[in-house]
């Protein structure tokens, strides 16, 4: 029983390993050039050789992504709160929010640069632009899923609105808030990279553009690898936070 569970957990790792081996073989058999498709071994070599430079660039990107994600959480939850509390605001804002999501960020980003320069601020702004929406929307639907009978129950016990919000609405919405944050976490690093593409002094995005212009596909893949890695780490952190803040959900899934 225990053994088969462990094997189940390892299956994805095996799949990834198999994929890497296949990739490596492909490159060696077809004798692909580095600028066409570098083999995994080559990518890991580059990762090691450029570790100092990559660490520096990664720290910028990670900083932008984390700050942007944090601000998105704050603004997203606040916006959802206002929309939940005042139906008028929701009716007025929801079409705007949906439209804002159909605007391609990549088209908007250069403008942001024009407005705010090429410092770190506009990158954070783009991360917020990408991450705000999933958090606000799922938080709002979380608030709306509050059981009205539960609210009545507390009201008959003499609870005030503030109490009801803290004891009922917020915990009811919490699982969906975390769903939104989890989605946003996976977008956040990408948002920062897109911001950097369009002009920056440091960051993985600028590292990528340099790698492309000097036909260094191995360096490009190395930075892609890091983007994937830190996105996964951020995702993992949100999952862990959810388990800490919503302990009852863990039990639910284990039953």
């Amino acid at each position, binding site marked *: 029983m225990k053994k088969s569970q462990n094997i189940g957990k390892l299956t994805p790792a095996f799949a990834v390993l198999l994929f890497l081996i296949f990739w490596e073989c492909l490159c060696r058999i077809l004798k692909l050039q580095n600028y066409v498709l570098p083999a995994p071994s080559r990518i890991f070599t580059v990762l090691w050789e450029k570790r100092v430079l990559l660490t520096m660039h990664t720290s910028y990107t990670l900083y932008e992504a984390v700050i942007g994600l944090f601000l998105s959480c704050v603004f997203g939850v606040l916006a959802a709160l206002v929309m939940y509390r005042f139906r008028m605001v929701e009716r007025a804002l929801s079409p705007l929010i949906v439209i804002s999501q159909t605007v391609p960020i990549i088209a908007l980003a250069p403008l942001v640069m024009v407005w705010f320069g090429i410092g770190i601020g506009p990158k954070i702004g783009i991360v917020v632009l990408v991450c705000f929406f999933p958090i606000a929307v799922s938080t709002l639907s979380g608030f709306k899923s509050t059981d009205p009978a539960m609210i009545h129950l507390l009201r*008959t016990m003499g*609870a005030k609105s503030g109490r009801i919000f803290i*004891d009922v609405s917020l915990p009811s919405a919490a699982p969906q808030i975390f769903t939104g944050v989890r989605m946003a976490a996976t977008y956040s690093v990408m948002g920062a990279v897109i911001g950097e593409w369009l002009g920056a002094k440091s960051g993985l995005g600028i590292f990528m553009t340099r790698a492309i212009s000097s036909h260094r596909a191995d360096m490009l893949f190395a930075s892609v690898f890091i983007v994937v890695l830190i996105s996964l780490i951020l995702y993992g952190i949100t999952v862990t936070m959810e388990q800490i803040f919503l302990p009852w959900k863990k039990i639910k899934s284990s*039953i």
Partner: protein
Amino acid sequence: MLLIDGLCKTYENYGNSGRLEVLDHIDMKAETGEFVSIIGPSGCGKSTIFNLLCGIEEKSEGIVTIDGCPAKPASFSYMQQRDLLMDWKRIWENISLPLKLRGVSKKDAKKIIEKQSELYGLSGFENAWPIELSGGMRQRAAFFRTMLSEGNIMLLDEPFASIDALNRERLQEWLMDVLSREKRTVLLVTHSVDEAIFLSDRVYVLTERPAKVKCCFDISFDRPRKRELLTAPEFNELKAALLSNLT
């Protein structure tokens, strides 16, 4: 004494037909400390009566008084049909909600609950999450919470509905035991004629919607009542009379 006089409820803007008349001049009374049951067809408006008493819904007409004064929602402790335990609070936190809202400190509340949880068959489960409990335990936890509410009149809406027959009988006896220690006025909604007669001092039978009081039975078996009562001839006579009014 609780007096309900000419209670009416009509839902306006209901579906396509416009309005739905649910309650049509309901008259009821419950002396202080009495156990009163309400029985009637499904969907006739039993839960609605409780919702009106608690102020969850606005009544359309009628007067409700307690000892001659207009009733306040705070005079009732309402146990709804669903247990309404909060998944995100541990059992003891769920139960202590009425205490917390009255300003009792966490520590004192926990002490009070640990002292009484034996009686409610919940000892050892104070720290569990609601989803870890069986349906019957959840009902008892909800009942415990209702008992801790200040309202002197308890409104119990099918508290044993989701429990199998065997445990149901056990819970009925347990409910009588709990109530004999702490005298309270109780209004109980139930589908079971046996349950109504076994537990009550008086049973009201309601008609199909719009609900009116069809008839009212006074039940004067001595207390404490034993299970054997269910097979006594007087019990069965009453039951037959009640059933004939129900259909």
